[in-house]
């Protein structure tokens, strides 16, 4: 917007010029706009049309932006519009707008929010965009629908305890949509749903990962063990990515924020050099801070691998999740532990050697106590399921979800004491309300719909 305001004189000038002169003022825009037209429509007149279209768009944009940035005390119609915009991403039609405005005026804004949430776009647009960045390493929203995204959407639609996304044996598919069957080796099922604009609100059906894959029920851990969760975070590497991104996406914390160099380094694996470049101060002041707590948690993923052909399929499009179930031994390690847990063992031979998938949460002690771990859980266990539950049951998990909801609906992070106070209230309500996300969306949208 700032750029637009700075170009105000130029815009006014251009609007008062005949097209030919304005062309000289906006040559680049005109050419680009024209170039965007399909080849069959690139006629001389189209060139002029696009110029004028651009001029008008810019003018309207400026006009609307000036309105938007001024302090406006919104009426019920404006509130209803924003409520719908923020929850669904699309404007309400006239009928819906009238209905929502009436509900707001009648003192039932929550009902108005619920009306908006019946729109398909809440699931196909808002939630799809909200969740997609959690499902890839680049944290980009520009990624296809997948089983991770669909499962979270399904859990929200069905108003289930949102914590289950990190540990439950749950999966959402659309078996009656005409899509190819769900497969462990590709994403075709979900790509079909997206490419054909299938309503996720109506098409998704709940099932279990153990029913749709060869994963044993006790090896399932919500989105962590979905195909996409594995593809993104179990591919190559050391499986530490799965924990790091779970912390980033679901506890809103990067390792830098929770590093604690005073935890015992006894579970740090052999692949972590204790003297990077010959300087152990780096390890003692930095590396140990993350690895001391991270490695004993990541051990929960010791039996998981994402198998793909790195040469012919570098993106792992056709790879699949592998889990060494009871009785399956890795030929190299001689245990159920995947090779990746023992790679680069000469970096520090005296480091920890993984032989099982038992995990311990060292961050329950020390400064990270404040993350609010569930005192009814033991803080240790075996496998991804109990570790996922450990994370999901922290207060920080609940707070993080509320922060994310707030940002999605209010289009800004909490940025004032009022906002932060709202986050605290929302978190409290979220916990008290059985960890249901839809009501949190409504609460945030009402908070941000304008006075």
């Amino acid at each position, binding site marked *: 917007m700032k750029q637009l305001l700075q170009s105000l004189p130029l815009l006014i000038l251009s609007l008062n010029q005949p097209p030919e002169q304005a062309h000289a003022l906006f040559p680049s825009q005109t050419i680009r706009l024209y170039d965007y037209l399909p080849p069959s429509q690139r006629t001389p007149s189209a060139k002029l049309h696009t110029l004028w279209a651009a001029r008008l*768009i810019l003018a309207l944009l400026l006009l609307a932006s000036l309105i*938007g940035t001024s302090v406006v005390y919104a009426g019920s119609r404006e509130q209803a519009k924003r409520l719908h915009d923020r929850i669904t991403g699309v404007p309400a039609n006239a009928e819906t707008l009238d209905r929502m405005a009436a509900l707001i005026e009648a003192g039932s804004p929550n009902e108005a929010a619920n009306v908006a949430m019946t729109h398909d776009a809440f699931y196909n*647009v808002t939630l799809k965009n909200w969740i997609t960045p959690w499902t890839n390493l680049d944290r980009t929203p520009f990624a296809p629908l997948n089983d991770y995204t669909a499962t979270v959407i399904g859990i929200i639609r069905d108003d289930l305890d949102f914590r289950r996304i990190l540990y439950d044996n749950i999966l959402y598919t659309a078996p009656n949509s005409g899509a190819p069957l769900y497969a462990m080796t590709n994403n075709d099922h979900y790509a079909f749903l997206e490419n054909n604009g299938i309503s996720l609100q109506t098409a998704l059906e709940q099932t279990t990962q153990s029913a749709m894959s060869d994963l044993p029920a006790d090896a399932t851990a919500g989105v962590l063990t979905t195909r996409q969760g594995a593809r993104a975070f179990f591919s190559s590497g050391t499986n530490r990515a799965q924990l790091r991104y779970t912390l980033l996406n679901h506890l809103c914390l990067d390792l830098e924020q929770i590093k604690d160099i005073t935890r015992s380094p006894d579970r740090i694996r052999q692949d972590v050099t204790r003297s990077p470049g010959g300087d152990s101060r780096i390890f003692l002041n930095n590396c140990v801070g993350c690895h001391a707590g991270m490695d004993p948690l990541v051990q929960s993923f010791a039996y998981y691998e994402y198998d793909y052909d790195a040469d012919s399929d570098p993106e792992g499009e056709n790879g699949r999740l592998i889990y060494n179930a009871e009785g399956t031994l890795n030929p190299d390690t001689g245990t159920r532990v995947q090779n990746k847990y023992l790679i680069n063992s000469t970096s520090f031979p005296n480091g920890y050697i993984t032989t099982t998938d038992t995990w311990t949460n060292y961050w329950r002690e020390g400064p990270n106590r404040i993350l609010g771990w569930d005192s009814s859980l033991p803080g240790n266990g075996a496998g991804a399921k109990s570790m996922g539950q450990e994370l999901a049951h922290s207060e920080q998990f609940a707070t993080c979800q509320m922060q994310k909801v707030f940002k999605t609906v209010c289009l800004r992070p909490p940025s004032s004491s009022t906002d932060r106070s709202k986050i605290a209230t929302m978190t409290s309500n979220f916990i008290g309300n059985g960890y249901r996300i839809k009501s949190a969306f409504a609460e945030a949208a009402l908070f*941000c719909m304008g006075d």
Partner: protein
Amino acid sequence: MLLSLTGCGGSGGERTSTNPPSSASPRSNGFVYSGPSAQSPDITRFQTYLWANLINSDRCGACHGDNGQTPRFANSTDVNAAYSAIQAYVSLSDPDSSTLVNKVSQGHNCWLDSDSACAATLTSYIQNWAGTSISAAAQTIDLSAPVQREAGSSKNYPDDASAFSNSVYPLLTTHCAECHSDTADFAQSPYFASADLNTAYAAIKSKIDLNTPEQSRVVVRLAKEFHNCWSTCSSDANTMLNAVTQFSNGVATTEVDPQLVISKALRLTDGIVANSGGRFESNVIALWEFKTGEGNTAYDTSGVEPAMNLTFNGTVSWVGGWGIQISDGKAQASTSSSKKLHDLITATGEYSIEAWVAPANVTQEGPARIISYSGGTTARNFTLGQTLYNYDFLHRSSTTDPDGMPALSTPDADEALQATLQHVVVTFDGINGRRIFVNGQLVSTQDDTPPGTLSEWDDTFAFVIGNEVSNNRLWQGVVRMAAIHDRALTPEQIQQNYDIGVGQKFYLLFNISNLIDLNDSYIVFEVSQFDNYSYLFNAPFFASLDPNAAPNDIPLIGMRIGINGRETTVGQAFSRLNTRLNQADYQNGQQTLSRIGTIIALEKGPDDDEFFLTFEQLGDHSNVYVEADSSVTASANTSTTAVSDVGLRNFAEIRATLSELTGVRSTLPALASTYQTVEQALPATESLDTFVSAQQMAITQLAIEYCNALVEDTDLRSTFFTGFDFSANADTAFDTSGRAQLIDPLIANFVGSNLDTQPTDSAVRTELESLITNLTRCTNTTCDAERTATVAKAACSAVLGSAVMLLQ
């Protein structure tokens, strides 16, 4: 009171020998022996490997020669007499402990500047003589009771350098900066007189003893070793002592917490040297172990003459626990001494370069020269280099060019080179060609270049570590050991040397007898200086030196390492230990407590740091460990920066909105295709601050596509633009009613009604009227029905692609 154990030890440990050294040719300087022949094979070996190196007048021959003082072991006229004379002064089974070596190490007429270098060289001579008489098997280590120290209060260096800057630092910068500064013309580490206070403070810590100032190295060097005094040594030493005392007096004493359950204390030097295993060094022709720790020379202690001593040039500093760090310099031998490599290697036609290195990073290339025997960037006999994650082996032969190309490198995918301490060996022989081993494993693939011969080797090159001889291929990192062998080491020999490790290791026996009421009981750690900044405490076990003692189910919980009167906060890898000392696990006089190791930050240096162990519970003694309350309240973000209350629709919201408003399905192929093209040019986030003109162009393009689809679809358009005649020519279609039929639905559907946050109807209407008027001036164009549709699309796009749609 002795316990034997088998272990592996440090370099400098014993060596194994399976073949007589191939480099057995006399290394004399023209001297021809004409006395009686050696009377036994052993005397021949003595003559070759030790005697020939001692008889010169610049060595022992000056005093212990033919008519000199006894013992006349450097008798140059009768090797058999010399052999008899030396017997009491050498130990072939343990060359390190030979009286000959000890004498020299204590400063007795060393012919080099470094006593330790003379001792190491003499040790090599004796080892070479001993040859196969030293067992290849791992030797047993006898554990014996160490000195008893109580963990005492201690003065520790404050984090802040101000006390140092007001006391000792001014003296150092005034009198020592000519050498001991990193900016000096002839810079010599340690840089405790650096112009940078923090650099100086870090360097001085191992040279000052805060608890006993008179034992500080900076005092002793002046008082007793007369090292570059600036007036008279006694008064200079006194001045320095006063300054150190002033510094020490300003430092508070760290008292040992009386609540702790603690073992007896030890210093590293109280430990038992754990040098049991044997390196394979039968064919070593040059060896640098970097033990000297000071000065500008790294000595070749292979015992094979001439010694290829390396002179430091640029920023090269010593590393604790043996080693040198190349920051911006090199360590280079003379061309004349380097010729040894040419002569001996071309004689055998094979060789190995062995080194323990820690590359500073994985970004250097060139290849950056780790070890090179060359004449410049385009001429060499051999080079071990680094290119990113790869080791490169350049080797000149009849099948490669003078630059040693094509090089053999480790495979890219393996990322064999890591920025951590690694054992790297490259070998060349006429059968296997070049091979590269990292940490004992062969990592290179088959050398595609035929082996060739070494006939092209040039004897005028110089041996260098850390750079090219021409100073323009810097390698940064640490070299803790380097050796050249004139044979290709076998994989087994390489693995053997890798297993031995590098640096000196000690067994530290922490006495806990008083805590568990069991005689001569110890927790034993294998401890070494890991690098300049830390110690490695490895694989602790429990042992009693009393052969009749055995633990009887003694609880041992929460063991921590203390240093200089306090537990360290970082590196407590045994704090979660929870075990019991019992007879079942106590085998052969020891019970393993853990196989892992941990590193503990170095504070004052290996001579002064004092270690002890603490326990949460040991036997009947316990101390509840209370962690310092380090929890911090999450700092509330008190930012009050105003943030916009409105935002943009993002890419997917725009697409859905365009579909929602026009009624056109986004799955239409043309729309899907355009969307795919412009998707990433659309706003990725809702923030207004991120909006740029390119995004507006993408929005416009997409809006045009949706309006095009709307207007081209006769059913959709007739529903949307009710009554508008799309078949009329452009000059008649846009009369008053036509304009209303076009503009009214655009405002009603796209802008909405009665919304104060949207532009007013009249404002939009005025702009659209103006647009339509301009577009229907058909002076130079045809005003047919096709143009009518085009104008409708333009009007539709102008609203649909505008802020009324974009802002939310």
